[in-house]
């Protein structure tokens, strides 16, 4: 037993690959077979991970030495590296395809999410600019939040809130889209492009549109692909300055 423990903590990063693989496998299985794709596997996997973090303290599950490799795999270096790599899927010609409505929806989507998130956080008692910016960024997606938070030096607690905010958005988008689709006239490619740009949370947009009308998925994904990148660009820079001016 002791030998195994020593081996695993010595090869922390490799063990983290295995742990995350098992979490993903189980979560996707539950999503497909028990929840019948009602909630995307990604959202379940992140919720499971957030629950696992409760076994530790400041560094979540990485506080247990056996799982210390998780901090390396989920650290800001590898995270930002993989976030940047997703830009490969963003074809410049495609944004032209999305047209003016797509571009407007993206800009409106990122900025309204951020500022509405900030206003709500203020009303719930948060006062410092870095925490507000991080929570506002989390209202964009679960990746814009932590990217902004670690760029600006937010606490792990606030970063956890921003991830959870993004996950709530995925779940509400997934469940809410088919229910509300008719009343917001979400029944054609044009409004699906706008929808993707406004909501931006790729997994939620894809799952929500799939449940509404599978034909709309590629149109929503078209704009949603750009959302996280745009959020990572605007939130820790322009939006953070605007907040600084207003609050300081």
């Amino acid at each position: 037993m002791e030998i195994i423990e020593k081996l695993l903590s010595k090869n922390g990063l490799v063990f983290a690959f295995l742990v995350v693989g098992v979490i993903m496998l189980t979560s996707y299985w539950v999503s497909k077979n028990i929840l019948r794709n009602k909630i995307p596997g990604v959202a379940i996997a992140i919720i499971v991970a957030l629950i696992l973090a409760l076994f530790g303290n400041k560094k979540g599950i990485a506080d247990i030495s056996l799982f210390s490799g998780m901090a390396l795999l989920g650290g800001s270096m590898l995270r930002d590296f993989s976030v940047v790599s997703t830009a490969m899927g963003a074809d410049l010609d495609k944004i032209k395809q999305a047209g003016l409505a797509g571009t407007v929806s993206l800009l409106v989507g990122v900025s309204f999410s951020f500022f509405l998130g900030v206003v709500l956080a203020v009303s719930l008692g948060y006062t410092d600019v870095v925490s507000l910016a991080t929570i506002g960024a989390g209202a964009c997606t679960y990746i814009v939040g932590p990217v902004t938070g670690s760029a600006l030096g937010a606490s792990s607690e606030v970063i956890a809130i921003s991830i959870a905010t993004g996950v709530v958005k995925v779940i509400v988008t997934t469940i809410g889209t088919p229910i509300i689709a008719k009343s917001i006239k979400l029944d054609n490619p044009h409004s699906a492009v706008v929808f993707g740009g406004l909501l931006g949370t790729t997994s939620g947009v894809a799952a929500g549109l799939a449940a509404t009308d599978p034909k709309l998925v590629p149109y929503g994904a078209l704009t949603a692909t750009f959302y996280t990148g745009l959020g990572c660009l605007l939130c820790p820079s322009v939006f953070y300055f605007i907040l600084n001016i207003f609050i300081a």
Partner: protein
Amino acid sequence: MTIYGVAILAFCFLVGKLIGNALGLAIGINGDVGGVGFAMILLIFSNAYMKKNGWLEAPTEKGILFWTSMYIPIVVAMSATQNVKAAISGGPVAIVVGVVVTITGFLLVPMISKIGKKEQIESN
């Protein structure tokens, strides 16, 4: 070679971060101002440029796409290593913000769709 792709990604990443940090320094904020965003823009343009010139071979592309596919697993690992205990004691912020922002987003769809459609007709 696969490593070429990883190296291109690393180059874009580091230059983007450099711009972000320089910008932070210039405005007197000790932090990285939009570095990830700049890196992504750089990668989009390098990608388009290399494709145009036929420099982007399949193995090179694979070196970048591997990291794209590791994105969600890394996000899962990141979530497992946050201070969730303290976050929960902070109250229902995440739920309130997540729900309100998403529903507002839904309600904006018909409005923005209208603006776009008008323009489309004009440009036609």
